[in-house]
């Protein structure tokens, strides 16, 4: 009986002579945050070459959007970065509003800012949870999920969905916030800083955590710019760039916040940046709650379904949804213009850009999404080279990539 035995495995003998060991990590691997595949060439445990492969989650959103009206394509953006769907929705809406010249009422702007920052908190909590778990700190994972749960409950209270919201509308938001929502959010904001402290006591000054993160995955400011990094990955390297500050949209120019900067550009700097961002997000939400003005929540020229502000107590059964007066469709289609526009917003992962070419129709001629995760995965090859496998895992966590957004 002949059977392949162990010698069929191409295991190099450790003679120190350029023998390489190739390892294919993913697409199913506990630490690649989805379906990322990384092809590694190893010398011992040192990475000689690292080739990230994406596309396992490709769903063709950019092409799909060409066959949908602007209002319909909104739901596709939920599935980009499913951890912070709200931020994508807002990014999309801001871009379409700019393209079509639609104005947004002030109250809607504030509500969007609140929900955008809430989704940033959600995303950062999940990032911290998985990043810590990748490095081996298991308890932080569950602590973060405890707080994330409160936020998801709040989203549920707000719009009925916990993951894919489609809450913002082109020209405003879908429903108004309730006072119960605001109270609950206020309660969350009161306890949140102490919860951040709780995570920090576990890992912030932990010697092992410091050993795993300080000086690992270093990117200088110039390199970061050259690689196209954005968000906390760029700010961790000391480059002061935040679309919320430098090209403000929604209500970001009406609230006061700081953009936390790191200097070393290593994993620890990026970690500190995001932790500070959580504090800043909480601060922004607090200001928005305090300043929240009254008024309409959707503009008069929104090319969308519009919900009534007040639901009638009793509704006659009818097969025609529009006949009930519950939903009215704005039928004025003259607002579509031709031209192209690129609008970037600051989502938790970095700069999310939408590029539209419009030919005057009610659907985009071409939509391109500049997704931060895709570009960050591209940078992984440069960052991880020469480091160990364990550092690769830490780097993937630190770049905070999500494959739904990368593969679109």
């Amino acid at each position, binding site marked *: 009986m002949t*059977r*392949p*035995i*162990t010698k*069929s*495995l191409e*295991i190099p003998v450790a003679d120190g002579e350029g023998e390489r*060991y190739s*390892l*294919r990590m993913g697409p199913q*691997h*506990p*630490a690649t945050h989805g379906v990322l595949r990384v092809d590694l060439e190893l010398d011992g*445990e040192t990475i000689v070459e690292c080739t990230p492969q994406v596309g396992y989650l490709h769903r063709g959103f950019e092409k799909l959007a060409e066959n949908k009206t602007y209002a319909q394509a909104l739901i596709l953006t939920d599935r980009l970065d499913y951890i912070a769907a709200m931020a994508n929705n807002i990014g999309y809406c801001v871009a379409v509003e700019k393209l079509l010249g639609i104005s947004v009422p002030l109250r809607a702007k504030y509500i969007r800012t609140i929900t955008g920052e809430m989704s940033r908190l959600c995303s950062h909590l999940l990032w911290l949870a998985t990043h*810590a*778990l*990748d*490095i*081996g*700190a*298991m*308890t932080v*994972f*569950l*602590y973060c999920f*405890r707080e994330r749960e409160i936020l998801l409950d709040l989203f549920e209270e707000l719009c009925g969905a916990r993951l894919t919201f489609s809450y913002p509308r082109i020209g405003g938001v879908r429903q108004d916030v309730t006072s119960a929502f605001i109270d609950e959010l206020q309660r969350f904001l009161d306890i949140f800083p102490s919860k951040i402290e709780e995570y920090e006591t*576990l*890992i912030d000054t*932990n010697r*092992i*955590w410091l*050993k*795993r993160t300080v000086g690992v995955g270093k990117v200088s400011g110039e390199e970061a710019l050259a690689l196209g990094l954005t968000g906390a990955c760029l700010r961790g390297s000391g480059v002061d760039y935040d679309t919320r500050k430098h090209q403000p949209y929604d209500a970001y120019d009406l609230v006061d916040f700081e953009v936390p900067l790191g200097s070393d550009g290593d994993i620890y700097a990026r970690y500190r940046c995001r932790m500070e961002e959580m504090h800043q997000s909480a601060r922004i939400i607090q200001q928005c709650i305090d300043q929240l003005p009254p008024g309409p929540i959707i503009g008069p020229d929104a090319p969308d379904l519009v919900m009534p502000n007040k639901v009638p107590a009793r509704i006659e059964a009818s097969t025609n949804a529009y006949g009930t007066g519950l939903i009215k469709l704005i039928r004025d289609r003259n607002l579509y213009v031709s031209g192209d526009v690129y609008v970037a917003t600051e989502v938790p992962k970095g700069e999310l850009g939408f590029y539209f070419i419009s030919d005057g129709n009610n659907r985009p001629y071409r939509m391109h999404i500049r997704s931060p995760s895709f570009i960050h995965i591209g940078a992984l090859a440069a960052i991880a080279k020469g480091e*160990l*496998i*364990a*550092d690769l*895992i830490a780097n993937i966590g630190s770049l905070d990539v999500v494959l739904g957004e990368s593969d679109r």
Partner: protein
Amino acid sequence: MDILLMLVWIVVLFAVVMLHVAYATYFERKIIGHMQVRLGPMRVGWHGLFQPIADGIKSFFKEDIIPENADRPTFLAAPIICLVAMMTSLAVLPFAKGWVLADIDIGLLFIFAMSSLASYGVVLAGWASNSKFSFLGGLRSMAQVISYEIAMGLSLVGVMLLAGSLNLSEIVEAQGDRFLGMYLMPQCIGFFVFFIAMLAETNRVPFDLPEAETELVSGYCTEYSGMRYAIFFMAEYIGMMVMASIGTVCFLGGWNGPFPVPFFPPLWFVLKVYLFMFLFIWIRATLPRYRYDQLMDLGWKLLIPLALANIVLTACIKALVS
């Protein structure tokens, strides 16, 4: 007749230890659960009390998958090697005065030999699985066990010097039954080195690199399933118990306690072992994982020099006093 009696004792010890292993997993899941603001197992029995039994039955009836390209005999033997080596070391542990299966004079050496042998199981498992992740896990384990075995052996030399024996019962008796007699105080450096090496030796957090699940999927046991996987698990837990017992015997005064217990002499021993087990679990809930090179750094550059210094210090003091 003696042999028959011995066999009975072996079976009793085996059964008791297996029960402890099963409930050590329950203990761990409950404690970590409560540390992580959740409940742990709750479904099977009152507060999940029968969970370990359900787990055992489940893994027993699971399909036993052997990869096609695996080196079959080695693949099958590896978990058995682990378990047998770990079980064998139980023979020399003194649970109470006279409660020991084999009261041999080289007890401590015997345990070292067996725990080194157990690492063969891990290395062979990694090699025989014919999977790259398993192979890396096996390699890591080999390097880790060799480095930390040295540190651990050296850390216990101080105890051997003080007790003047390698027989575990004699080491306990040399500490006397007074609280201050424990070697924890005179051998605090040795205990420090021993404790860290103990974590590394049993592949526990923060040194769980051979099975680092976020890096190597599950390391050396990636390809194992069902009962064979459970055997690795059992071996790991028995390993923890053996290491905790050595810690108890060599540093915490073994079966001696503040007052003797009339009907169940090993009570103090068991409590001390469970104190160690609790520390294992507590550390797992708290610390992140070391990186491979940092692990080596710690072992060779800190623990071994410390242990050597401890030997010199202990020898000098002993020579001066006597």
